[in-house]
């Protein structure tokens, strides 16, 4: 598992590559929580190069989404592969998380929320 961070305007994008499993969930949680703890409120995780996720990894996404919700922030996940998306559907995450097909669609999700506010 590797992550890469970039900024697109006020959105922080973390791209996650490889396998998010029991051993890599803790380092990934540290990276994601560090971004939130330093004050970022619009966080997007680009899951395009994410090949595998298990329940330890799913918990990290759930924790981050919960935390951002309490802080009036937003977590958006984009570009999930069909297998990863299938797992998100099975666990009911597609109904509680912001999931976009692409980065562009993900960025629009943040803008739409601002328009509603």
């Amino acid at each position, binding site marked *: 598992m590797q992550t890469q961070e970039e900024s697109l305007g006020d959105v922080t994008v973390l791209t996650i590559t490889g*396998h998010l*499993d*029991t*051993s890599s969930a803790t380092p990934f949680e540290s990276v994601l929580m560090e971004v939130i703890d330093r004050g970022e409120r619009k966080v997007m995780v680009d899951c395009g190069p994410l090949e*595998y996720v*298990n*329940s*330890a990894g*799913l*918990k990290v996404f*759930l*924790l981050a*989404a*919960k935390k951002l*919700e*309490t802080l009036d922030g937003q977590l958006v996940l984009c570009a999930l592969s*069909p*297998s990863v998306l*299938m*797992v998100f559907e*099975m*666990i*009911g995450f597609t*109904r*509680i*998380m912001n999931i976009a097909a692409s980065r562009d669609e993900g960025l629009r999700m943040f803008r739409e929320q601002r328009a509603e506010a």
Partner: protein
Amino acid sequence: MHEGSITIRLSADVAEIERLNRIVRQFGELHELPGRTLYAVNLALDEMVTNVILYGFAETKGEETKGEEIVVRIEVHPPELRCEIVDGGREFDPMQVPSPDIQAPLRERELGGLGIHLMRALMDEVTYRREHPKNVLTMSKRIR
């Protein structure tokens, strides 16, 4: 796709999970399993073996114990794939674990029970039996 089987012996150590996942993927590729089936089997085995390693042998929940053996067997008999996990840990029937409420809103979603729920959703048939002093979990899935 080819018929075949493999038996993997693991010690109760979290470092073994990565080895298990690697062997399962290699086995799946060698036997030309469809990507979706391989992903499902890989994930179901990962979840259940991780549970055994983390909770099956420890007196205290979450404490890791070394030296115990877990035996995983995978059989490909098209159109079906069967997996079996045998461990000498304390008695545990994953089918008795209640499913998380996946309809709950985000703030009420709980972190526990995700792995067992996933395994049950990924597999077509799951049976548990206690063969004292061992737990035997059998999972099967139609290959597609």
